[in-house]
């Protein structure tokens, strides 16, 4: 097992990884930017090294300084968390070549799943249902038109190089096609340095269902059941839950089975997530795979009792699965709200400033993953997630009631947050009845007309 792990991240996930390391008795090294010198992660890690100025490009994305910090501290593994370098195949390769274990899949698998077209193809060939669409980049309007004729409108143009809504365009009819193709390609080029795009049939009223898997890199894979992450704004997840509600058990089982088949097909190592869309007739389609621990992993941990970050480390260190499928059992229901420093009533504009924290929620069924503390400054350098609030109950109603109460228990000032929005959603009858889809926020009127609201598909 590893002696010392370097954590190449910040905020709540850095703390989360420190906690998993302490559970395993492994020393921790945290790298930080000048903006994070007074962070909780720096306080709680065994060692910490400054790797650059506040800008991510010069610190959390600065591969030479991170590798050098691993060298001078004697770390034998690096945990990348999520975001930053977590799905950067080059970084994984540098780690491999420096003899430092990258806690995640191989650079080859990261590359493969990072190429969304290649990922579709691999999954399709393994027998996993994928969204009807192209298996090659769509270059010209002419080929786009022939694709459109094959699958029919509406269609989505997506970037091969990455997810998150960038380079993505909904096309409702032939007239929109040419313009959308051009814009998507140039957006993809700008965002991912890769102008390749592909086309998929647009699935109406779909739910976002994803499966948490863990593989040993030798073809053995277990799943930790599914999460419903349908409550999104511009492909940014806001609320996640497990188990998914309102999907027949036999369909869930098919999805879980497909996810395991898909992960086995690529000899997946580490924790990963296969994302699916489920349409109104309970047909499901593979969308993409995230080759990292995800923001929303706590809902799975609350329901199964298993520690996914611990297992990530164990798999990386021991190259075998620490758990059998039959020992992974669901109990109750968990919901996560991502508390973002954003104004939900003003186009989700990021809010910055010095946070005055008086009190955080607690008590039965409440988990908080956060790195905030009183008087910490929330800057615009990094993403706006300031806390993950997770509630658990023996059933979904209790989880919702506890979430509602816990949201009300947050006593913070100095920043706008998404808490008021979540309080409204927890009282929404459609949400309470489990009647949700990826269009939920829009359909239920929770999104104001912000000035840039329609820049991406929403």
């Amino acid at each position, binding site marked *: 097992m590893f002696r010392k792990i370097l954590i190449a991240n910040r905020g709540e996930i850095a703390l989360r990884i420190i906690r998993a390391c302490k559970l395993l008795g492994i020393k921790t090294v945290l*790298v930080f930017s*000048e903006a994070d010198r*007074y962070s*909780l992660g720096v*306080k709680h890690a065994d060692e910490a*090294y*400054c*790797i*650059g*100025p506040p800008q991510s490009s010069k*610190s959390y994305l600065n591969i*030479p*300084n*991170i*590798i*050098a*910090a691993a*060298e*001078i*501290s004697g770390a034998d593994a690096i945990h990348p968390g999520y975001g930053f370098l977590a799905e950067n195949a080059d970084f994984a390769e540098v780690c491999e070549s*420096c003899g430092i274990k990258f806690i995640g899949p191989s650079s080859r698998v990261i590359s493969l799943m990072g190429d969304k077209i290649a990922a579709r193809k691999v999954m399709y060939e393994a027998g996993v249902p994928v969204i009807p669409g192209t298996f090659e980049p769509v270059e010209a309007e002419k080929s786009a038109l022939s694709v459109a004729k094959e699958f029919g409108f509406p269609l989505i143009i997506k970037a091969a190089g990455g997810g998150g809504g960038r380079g993505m365009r909904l096309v409702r009819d032939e007239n929109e096609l040419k313009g959308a193709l051009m814009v998507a390609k140039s957006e993809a080029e700008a965002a991912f340095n890769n102008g390749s795009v592909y086309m998929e049939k647009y699935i109406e009223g779909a739910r976002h269902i994803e499966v948490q898997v863990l593989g040993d890199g030798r073809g053995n894979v277990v799943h930790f059941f599914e999460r419903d992450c349908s409550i999104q704004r511009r492909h940014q997840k806001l609320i996640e839950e497990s188990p998914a509600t309102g999907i027949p058990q036999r369909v869930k089982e098919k999805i879980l089975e497909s996810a395991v088949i898909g992960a086995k097909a690529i000899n997946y190592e580490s924790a990963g997530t296969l994302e699916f869309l489920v349409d109104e007739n309970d047909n499901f389609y593979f969308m993409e795979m995230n080759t990292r621990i995800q923001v929303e992993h706590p809902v799975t941990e609350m329901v199964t009792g298993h520690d996914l970050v611990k297992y990530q480390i164990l798999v990386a260190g021991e190259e075998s699965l620490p758990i059998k499928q039959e020992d992974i059992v669901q109990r109750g229901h968990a919901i996560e709200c991502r508390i973002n420093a954003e104004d939900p009533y003003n186009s989700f504009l990021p809010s910055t400033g010095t946070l005055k924290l008086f009190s955080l929620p607690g008590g039965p069924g409440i988990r908080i993953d956060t790195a905030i*503390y*009183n*008087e910490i400054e929330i800057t615009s350098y990094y993403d706006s997630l300031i806390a993950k609030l997770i509630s658990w109950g023996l059933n979904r109603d209790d989880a919702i009631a506890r979430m509602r109460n816990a949201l009300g228990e947050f006593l913070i000032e100095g920043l706008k947050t998404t808490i008021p929005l979540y309080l409204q959603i927890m009282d929404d009858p459609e949400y309470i009845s489990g009647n949700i889809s990826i269009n939920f926020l829009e359909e239920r009127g929770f999104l104001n007309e912000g000035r840039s609201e329609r820049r991406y598909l929403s």
Partner: protein
Amino acid sequence: MIDVDLIKKLVDIVSYSNIEELRVGDRDIKITIKKFSSGKVYRAQDISKEAETPQESPRSEEKGEEVVYITSPIVGTFYRAPNPDAPPFIDINDEVKIGQTVCIIEAMKLMNEVKSDYNGIIRKILVENGEPVEYGQPLFLLEPTGENA
């Protein structure tokens, strides 16, 4: 007379700083600056750790003289000489020019030369040969001389 602009400037200074209290006097100046009587979060065991970290600011007052720091631009291992048998690039009381190599920092098996941004005289060497350094860590304390752009 009370100078509102002055006050606004002082308020800005306090607002965008890590200090908690500023007192300004007059009649041959009296300034008190208090840093975190309360705000900062340290456990007992952190305080020593924190005390070891020198301030990152390249300019700082010390005994009334103006001094500057050469800080590390990268993370790595600090070497005062190009190889173990060679003499150090510079020593205490040596004069250095802008652009002159003052040390090497090894990272990922590469030797990176660090050059001075100042003209001045080396007054302190703040890191031992062979020690690890982090980004922004002060390496040398200089007393500036002549022109410093």
